């Protein structure tokens, strides 16, 4: 079975997020003074071939922990695992 997977990788909350801060400080100049707490993360999307959803999830969890994120500074979580319908 083929699944579409989405994984979200974010900096751990205790770490300052330079990118988020840059966005936040650019907003007022454009007229938005009502935004705060900007955090920028990574969104990874791909297709994985697997026997079933459980095994797909297990594999994606491992990929997320070993390659897609660095657990020292980042959290990762699966946003979605959806079977691709063959046509």
């Amino acid at each position: 079975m083929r699944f579409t997977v989405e994984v979200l990788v974010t900096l751990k909350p205790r770490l300052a997020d330079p990118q988020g801060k840059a966005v936040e400080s650019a907003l007022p100049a454009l007229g938005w003074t009502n935004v705060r707490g900007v955090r920028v993360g990574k969104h990874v999307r791909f297709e994985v071939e697997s026997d079933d959803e459980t095994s797909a999830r297990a594999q994606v969890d491992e990929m997320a922990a070993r390659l897609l994120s660095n657990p020292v500074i980042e959290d990762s979580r699966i946003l979605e695992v959806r079977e691709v319908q063959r046509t």
Partner: protein
Amino acid sequence: MSARIGVVTFPGSLDDRDALRAIELMGGQGVALWHADRDLRGVDGVILPGGFSYGDYLRCGAIARFAPVMEEIRTFAEGGGPVIGICNGFQILCESGLLPGALIRNRSLRFVCRVVHLRVETTRTPITADATQGEVLEIPIKHGEGQYVAADDVLDRLEAEGRVVFRYCGPDGETSDDHNPNGALRAIAGIRNRAGNVVGLMPHPEHAVDPDVGPTGGQALFASLFTHVMAPAR
């Protein structure tokens, strides 16, 4: 006999040739190592050079750490062999777990290429053994992701165990926010493992040995490395 120092080329390594040239210029023997090989060719020490291995995509060093040569390097390091990670090499060592913490985007979000001052914080590493504690060296940095971060308890432990090797500082050795080029926590520019044989640093000593093209703060580090590896086992 001169010290044989291996320099690993990953796809996307850039300062590998510079490191080899610096080794030769300082009187050592440079040995080119290839990421896909499982062979360190009997070298006395290893340098993981600067650059953008695998384009630094995803995270710096994230992909390089899985290269076959890294298994050999891990074994070599566990046996006490000196392993020096410069810039991208430092990032790879952190990603591999050989050193604690991580390097994230510079506070400015911009790449920065500039000559900085570094204060030597410990002489208990192969590259600082011949330096003096508190000595200030001039060495360039060039990186976009050099902000060293780690959890507070990790930082405390590093400090307590004397494992901070270099800090960014001013010309007189004073640390301050103005002299911190990337926002690194506690102005950390380089650290070592517990045993002291694995060192990672963001600045580029290989670009600080030839007075015709830059400062010379790297000379002491190479000289020290050579003495260390050539010394009879301690």
